[in-house]
Every structure is written in structure tokens, then in C-alpha cells.
């Protein structure tokens, strides 16, 4: 082993959104904070410069900004009676790599979860009865309330310059916003993005049916904005290259555009890139972490001593690190014991494509430019007649009109040849798509563990993902799709058709990068890996961030809740843990 480097107070595994938030928060206290990132350093110029970033082939088709599966992947199967095989090509989800992580290539769709989402089990039992919840559905309360998180949602809103119209300010419903959202202390820092024509049509149609549409909250700035850290963002230019691309105009919120210019100047912060963390090291009692081991760019194994270890890696990678490091009892679905790897969840989506005679200008877009209705999310409606749990928003997003991947064709269009080309030319300018974005509950047989066969470049077992859509989700998604079709019809298009989510979950087509779970948070150590402050029950100087801690997934994009939890946990570390290191919650 190489000579061990000097100890630091805090080591962060991964340097995306949560790594940047934790680093910024904890360096405020004067602690020595070190971030270890497996990928390279990246910045707006030159990596996402407007001179070259709008290259759909390089970035969207050939995965320019994403994890390289040749270096790092997982194995996948739908159910326990199958053999998991390595995912050799990205598809369903697209983890990031490099400084900024997926915070670089997200769309910027920014939501809060509903107050009921955080108490889903107790709320559902209370409203619908215990038997409403299927026996194999392992949903659980988060151990935290929306009210506790609200100030931290607000912090992130103002860090990012979110563009939107508030729907509920301190209990007062505001016109034009989402009337179902949880109460917020104040409005958004910026007004909503300018409308695109399809969102205007959606808005009109939804209102005619009796829904209450609103502009989707966007982490694409509707105007130049300087955040509370003093970092300057530019105005969004609606270039239509948000998702899967970095922003060259400083107008999509990312660690680079909101935090790093200030953080990187702090003398007590340091960053090492091209460092793969392979272990959290424990002392002989197994109850205290001494630091981490990582493999550096030269392939050397390095031991980094640290007093506090914070897992800020991508979603399921945090669970993988805990499994490799033997922190917490691994989950065994057969005996229903253990916690690490338990309660993996995802998102279930569907679409209704709509075709017009008018020009829609699809190439004018932004990642979170959309109009939505939230009537069918969470428990915003009475589920009793329908027999499923959960829901989602229905939105018409206009994120761009990129030529290779962003186009819709009527169901009867030819699938190839001259006829296909003609259909493409006829429909490119005159189509749009309504999306449904549904929750996924946790189940006993949806989980993460270590693969018995396949190993990574260091010889460690790959992560194995076992996951499928369950009848509850299929039913719920079908319900949402029908509602979306109602709106499509009310838009009075030339034609429309639904593309429901049917059958088994396939890891091949892109859906969302909203993988959750594996390190569930909660009040009970028997069913959670971390406590309400995201502190490991087993090793009190290890904290875990990210969607890893979601006990199940709600019907919204997760980044807002990820960031709010990071600020919440940082607050607990600064104001409670550092004063008295040790368990913050007595088991």
C-alpha cells in the first residue's frame, strides 16, 4: 500500500450533488473535508461549452457523460428464480461519472414530495385499512416529516434559482401553482420559464376537463440569477439540450453552476479525482470507521484516514459500498432478515403521443419546461375504488426536438424505409408527448445484493439488482395513462395514441435514472439502514446520502428530496453530531 495520506476530518465518497452540498456545509465549520470522485474534473468550459455540447450522437446516443459499463456495471434479473446477467450497455438508467455526477446531465425537473409520502404506511393504513396494503409490499414511513424537511427544500430552491409558481404558501393556496403541494414558506426565487406552444394547449385542455394545471418547477433559470452563495447563473436559452447534456450557458443548476466556484476556493476543502473508493475501513470493534480505501489514477491502493465518512455515491452504489465494507446486515429476501439492499424501488412511466396540424416548434425546449397536473399523485385522490397505492404527475414536457431520439410518429406510420422518412418529415414539427411519472412501492423481492458470479475490475462482486414491476404499479400506471389520454383528447389533436407500460420491467429502454433504496432511512433499525439523520445504525461515523435512503419512491423526480435530506443531515452533523459524536438516535 502507498504511504497513507494525512488524516482528514471528513471524507466524501463521490462528488455529485450530495457530495457538493455536504462539502459546502461542512467546510463552513472549518473542518478539513476531502472529496474522492471516481471520474474526472469537469467544468462548464470546456467540458459543456456551447461550441460542442449540442451533439446528440456523442452525448445522448454514445453516452458521452455517463458511467462506462466496461469499467463499472451491475447484474440484473427480474425475479429471484432467474440468473442475473451483467448490464453491458446502459439503458433504463444513466448514472453519471465525474465531478458533478448526474447533477450535470439531469433535466432539472425539481419537485418536493408530498407530506403524506413521508408517512405512507401509517397514512394508508389509517385511510384505507391495513389489508389495503399487499402482504409483499414493504412500504414504510420515512421517520421524518415534510415539515422537518421544508426549510431544506427551500434552501435548495434558492441555491438553484428554481423557476416556478408556488401553489401553497404557508397553507394559502396560490392561483396558478400546484394546489396539492405541501405548504412552503415562500415562493420560488424566479418566475416560471416561458411557455412552449404544446404546454399552452395542455394547460387549456386540462382546465377544460376540470384539472388544475401549473408550470412545472424548473432548475433551468428563467433569468440571470445570483444565488445566496454569490454564484452567478445565466438565463436559459431554451436550446433543447438539457437531459443527458451539460449546460454551457450556466443556466441549469448543477454543483458546478451553484456551489463549486465558492467551495473550490476554500482552503479546508480538497478534491481527488480518478479515485475509486472500494472500502470503508472499520476498527477492530467494527463499530467505528477509520477512513476509506481507494484506488487512485495510477492503480495504487491508498488508505485515507478520516473521522467521518459520508457516502455520496450514486444511489445503489452506496448500498454496494456498505455491502463490500460489511457495514450493516445484508438483506436476505428469503428469510426477510437484514437491511442493506432492501427496498429497492424505481419509477414507472408511460406516454401519450399527440399529433397536430399546427407547428409545435419542438426544438425550443428546456429540461423542465412543462405543464403538469397533480390530481393523481400520492394520496391526492381517493384510492378506495381503484385498489392500488401510489400515483404520479401527468405532464407535457417540451425538452427539445433532437433529431435522433426526440420524435413521435403516429401508431400507423411505417416502421422503416421511404414511408418512415416521410412520416418523420411530416410529424417532426407537429407532435408532442404527454408523460405520466408514477411511484413505485417497495417489495420483498425488489432488492440489491452481491452477485455470486460476476466481479468488478478490483475483484469485488458486482451489485446484483432484482426488480420487476408489480401489479400495483402496472394498475396505477394504466390509470394515469387513461387520464393522460383524456387530456390528449381534449387538446383536439389530429390523432393521439397511448403507450402504456406493460409487462415486465426491461432494463433496455431508457425510462428514468430514479433508482432508489438499498439503504432505507427509518425509525426502526430492523427495517432501515440509517436513522432519520441518515446516520448508519451500525457505524455512527458513517452517513449515507442520496436516493439510497428512500424507503420507497414517490411520484416525483427525486433530486429535490435528495438535496433537502442532504441539507437536513448536514445540519444535524454540524449542530449535533460534531458537538457529541456518536449515535444521534437511540435504537
Amino acid at each position: 500500500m502507498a504511504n497513507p495520506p494525512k488524516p482528514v476530518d471528513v471524507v466524501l465518497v463521490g462528488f455529485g450533488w450530495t457530495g457538493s452540498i455536504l462539502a459546502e456545509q461542512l467546510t463552513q465549520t472549518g473542518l478539513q473535508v476531502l472529496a474522492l470522485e471516481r471520474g474526472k474534473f469537469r467544468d462548464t468550459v470546456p467540458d459543456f461549452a456551447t461550441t460542442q455540447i449540442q451533439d446528440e450522437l456523442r452525448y445522448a446516443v454514445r453516452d458521452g457523460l455517463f458511467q462506462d459499463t466496461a469499467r463499472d456495471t451491475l447484474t440484473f434479473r427480474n425475479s429471484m428464480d432467474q440468473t442475473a446477467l451483467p448490464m453491458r450497455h446502459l439503458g433504463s438508467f444513466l448514472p453519471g461519472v465525474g465531478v458533478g455526477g448526474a447533477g450535470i446531465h439531469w433535466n432539472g425537473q425539481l419537485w418536493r414530495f408530498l407530506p403524506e409520502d413521508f408517512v405512507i404506511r401509517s397514512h394508508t393504513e389509517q385511510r384505507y385499512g391495513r389489508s389495503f396494503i399487499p402482504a409483499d409490499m414493504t412500504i414504510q414511513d420515512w421517520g421524518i416529516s415534510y415539515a422537518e424537511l421544508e426549510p431544506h427544500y427551500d434552501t435548495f430552491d434558492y441555491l438553484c434559482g428554481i423557476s416556478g409558481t408556488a401553489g401553497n404558501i404557508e397553507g394559502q393556496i396560490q392561483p396558478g401553482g400546484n394546489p396539492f403541494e405541501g405548504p412552503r414558506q415562500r415562493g420560488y426565487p424566479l418566475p416560471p420559464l416561458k411557455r412552449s406552444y404544446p404546454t399552452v394547449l395542455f394547460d387549456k385542455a386540462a382546465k377544460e376537463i376540470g384539472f388544475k394545471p401549473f408550470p412545472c418547477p424548473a432548475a433551468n433559470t428563467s433569468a440571470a440569477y445570483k444565488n445566496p452563495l454569490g454564484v452567478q447563473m445565466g438565463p436559459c436559452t431554451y436550446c433543447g439540450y438539457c437531459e443527458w447534456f451539460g449546460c454551457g450557458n450556466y443556466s441549469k443548476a448543477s454543483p458546478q453552476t451553484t456551489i463549486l466556484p465558492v467551495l473550490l476556493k476554500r482552503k479546508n476543502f480538497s478534491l481527488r479525482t480518478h479515485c475509486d473508493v472500494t472500502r470503508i475501513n472499520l476498527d477492530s470493534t467494527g463499530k467505528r470507521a477509520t477512513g476509506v480505501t481507494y484506488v487512485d489514477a495510477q492503480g495504487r491502493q491508498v488508505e485515507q484516514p478520516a473521522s467521518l465518512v459520508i457516502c455520496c455515491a450514486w444511489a445503489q452504489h452506496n448500498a454496494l459500498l456498505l455491502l463490500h465494507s460489511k457495514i450493516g446486515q445484508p438483506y436476505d429476501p428469503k428469510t426477510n432478515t437484514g437491511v442493506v439492499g432492501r427496498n429497492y424501488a424505481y419509477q414507472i412511466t408511460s406516454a401519450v403521443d399527440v399529433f397536430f396540424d399546427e407547428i409545435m416548434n419542438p426544438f425550443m425546449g428546456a429540461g423542465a419546461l412543462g405543464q403538469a397536473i397533480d390530481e393523481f399523485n400520492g394520496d391526492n385522490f381517493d384510492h378506495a375504488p381503484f385498489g392500488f397505492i401510489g400515483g404520479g404527475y401527468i405532464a407535457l414536457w417540451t425538452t427539445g426536438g433532437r433529431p435522433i431520439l426526440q420524435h413521435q410518429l403516429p401508431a400507423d406510420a411505417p416502421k422503416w424505409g421511404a414511408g418512415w422518412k416521410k412520416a418523420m418529415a411530416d410529424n417532426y414539427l407537429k407532435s408532442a408527448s404527454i408523460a405520466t411519472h408514477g411511484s413505485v412501492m417497495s417489495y420483498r423481492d425488489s432488492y440489491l445484493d452481491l452477485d455470486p458470479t460476476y466481479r468488478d475490475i478490483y475483484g469485488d462482486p458486482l451489485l446484483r439488482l432484482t426488480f420487476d414491476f408489480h401489479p400495483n404499479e402496472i394498475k396505477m400506471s394504466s390509470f394515469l395513462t387513461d387520464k393522460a389520454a383524456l387530456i390528449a383528447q381534449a387538446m383536439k389533436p389530429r390523432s393521439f395514441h397511448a403507450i402504456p407500460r406493460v409487462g415486465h420491467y426491461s432494463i433496455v429502454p431508457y425510462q428514468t435514472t430514479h433508482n432508489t433504496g438499498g439503504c432505507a432511512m427509518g425509525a426502526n433499525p430492523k427495517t432501515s439502514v440509517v436513522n432519520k439523520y441518515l446516520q448508519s445504525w451500525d457505524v455512527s461515523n458513517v452517513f449515507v446520502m442520496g436516493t439510497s435512503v428512500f424507503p420507497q419512491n414517490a411520484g416525483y423526480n427525486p433530486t429535490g428530496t435528495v438535496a433537502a435530506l442532504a441539507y437536513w443531515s448536514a445540519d444535524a452533523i454540524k449542530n449535533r453530531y460534531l458537538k457529541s459524536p456518536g449515535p444521534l438516535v437511540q435504537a
Partner: protein
Amino acid sequence: MNAMHPRRCTRTIARSIAWALLAGAPVAASIAAQGEGSNEVARGEYLVRIGDCEYCHTEPNGKPFAGGRAIATPFGVIYTANITPDPTTGIGQWTVQDFYTALHTGIRRGGGHLYPAFPYPWFTKVSRDDVEAIKAYLDTVAPVQQSNKPNKLPWPMSWRGSLFGWNLLFFDEGDYKDDATQSAQWNRGAYLVQGLAHCGACHTPVNWLGGTKHSNAFQGGVAGLHWAAPGLGSNIRDGVGGWSVAEIVEYLKTGANAKSASAGPMTDVVMNSTQYLSDTDLNAIALYLKNRPHGAHKTPPKTQDLGSAALARGQALFTDNCTACHNPDGRGVPKVFPPLTGSAAIQADNPGTVIHVVLAGSKMAAPASLPTGLSMPGFGWKLDDREIADVVNYARHAWGNRAPLVDADTVAAVRKDIEPSDRPSRDGTLTAHPDAPVNRGNP
């Protein structure tokens, strides 16, 4: 930081006033300087910031003040000297008088001439008292053993004796003299601008021998290879005539204001020097620049017809490549993406800066007060010389702008001098083509 013994402090004050009275040096400057703090080393550190000494006297990634930075001049390359207190390779053996003689007369210890790449023609105005404080600070810097690199100058410039003649022609030795008709604040600004801050070293034109053309003071000059330094006079188009005092202060403090943003060498000046100046001194500088006696006006450039075909080509290129930040009306986003409309930097007679920035990109200053460091990417790999000439001509002629035309050969000459890198760089210099080998080893 050395605590000053009270008696020594009093002696220093007394001595400086005595000097001032004897030598006729500006009392205003000395006493204003004293106001920065009674600790001479701290005062010297502040003065070193004003003089921007550390940047030139430190090579990239080198030890502070140990010299070795290459200064490109039209005559060749001169390497800066080690001014740490190292006794053999630095100035550790220099007395205060040696140091004063060097700054005041351009003669180094041992009698040899210094090249005016070291701006002694400007530092000559710095008061004895300030020079002593600077030396006191430099004496506390960590000594570094690093020999000075030999300069790369052709004969006769390589012969230091040649500077005797140059000095006779172009060097006015002497202290700053107060203008009694102006306020103390104006004089402070003049003292700094004409002296330690040596703004004119870039912002005043030089003749073919590198001598300052004082009759055209602050009417624009050169700040390095293909970096035009705009005028600082009252001219609206090529000066600060259209800037308020507050805007000048803001620019020096943060690197940007509503009308402009620093690029290239001026980003370095803001980062290493002017962001540290007190508001008092920045206001004095701004006041002086806005209220200088008018020198000979520069003749405006001849009106040149861009021609409708070239205009159309340039506008198309501008629309596709530039409007995302600079807007179709050229007004940019104030304090975010600098306006091109009415910009002195864009309309400078010398198109070097504009071409340089289009080729290689630019990064704004990122002081703590304006930390983002917004960057413009380089277009050198993407647009050819003719296209860059077209788009530069458009930007220099649209929206009421006026400037001499450039052609593809001009662009080619700049491109040749700015060595392209085939690695994506971190500091906004030439961006590689995206298909070039990616630098995966960048830590």
C-alpha cells in the same frame, strides 16, 4: 508579521515627513499611505498588491516571488528576477538603498541596467517611504534558491548597456509631484496610476523601440502578445468616458461591471492586484481616470464599409455562435455575459484581444466578491480564419460599433502565435476539438 517597536514607528513617520519636506515629495501620498496601517510590513504587503509584483515575479506553478516568468516582448523573452530574500539568487543582500535605486532609476545592485519590462519608468514615481515598506515586506517572504534564467534577447538588446541610450530617450526619472490644483484624492489616484499600479505600461501606446508615448497617455496600448489594452481616457468609444466612477471601482474590484468584463491579462490584474485595493484607493484611481487633463485626442478610425455580403456572413455566424450569451442585440446579460455593444475592448484599433478571445476563449476574474469565474469557450478549432474575421468584423460594426476591419490573414497571424493545445484545458485557452484525444489523466 513583525510588531513595530513604538520608537521605530515614530522614527519612521518622522523620517518620512522629513523626506517629504526635503525632497518635495507629495505629503498627501505619504500620509495617505501611512493611513493603511502603522505596521510597515503589512503596509508593504498592501503596496505589493497594488504593484502586482507577485504575478510577474512568480512563474506559473512556481514559488512566490522567485521569478522565472517569461515576459514576451517584441524584442524577445525576458525572465523575471528572483526577489525573495535569498542571499545568493535573490535580493537578500540588497540594501533598502539598492532597492530604491532599482525602482527609481532602473539600475540594479552592482550597477547594471534593468530592462523596462520591469516597469521602472513608472515605479520611479513611487515615494521612498513606500519603497521602504515594500522592501520590508519582501524581506519577510520565504527565501527561495532559484537562479535567474538568462534572457532571450537578440543583440544589441542583450547588451544591457544599450539601455543607457534608451533611458536618455524615453525615461523620465523622478518622484511624483502633487498637482496643487487638484484634491488630495485626485493626487492619490494619480500617484497610484502613474506610479506603483503602472497602468500605463499597458494602457499607453509605445513606439517601435518600446518607449512610452507620453503625449498619448492612457490612449490604449498592448498588454502582451495579442492582448490590446483599451484606452483609459475620457473617450466614450475607446476610454472610460462612458463609465461612472462607481463602475470603474466595481470593475477593478470584481473584474466586471454592467459594461464589461476582464479578459486575459486584466483578469490576472484583478485576481492578483486590484481586488485587494481599498475602496478609498479604488475611488481615487477612478476619480483620477475620469478627471485627467485631456491629452491629444486619438484620431478616430476611418469609416470603412463592411459590405453587405460580409455583414450577412458575419451576422449569420454571430447568430449561430454568439447570441446564446451575447444576445442578438449584442447587449449580453449585464454583469454575466459582457455586452459587445459600445464596448471599448471590442472596438479597440488593435483587434488582438477580440481575435484572441474568439480563438481561445476567456475566463472572467473570480475574486471572492464575484466568485463564479464565468468562461467563454474558444472557437479556434471550430471556425476558420475567414469565419472568425467575418464574425469579428460584424461584432465591431453592428449596433453602432465602429472599428477597423480585420481579414483572414490577421486572424491567421494571431492563431499562429497562440499555440494550440490538443488537450482540453482547464483555464479557457484553446478548446480542443471534441474528437481530439481526451485527457483522461487530468487529476
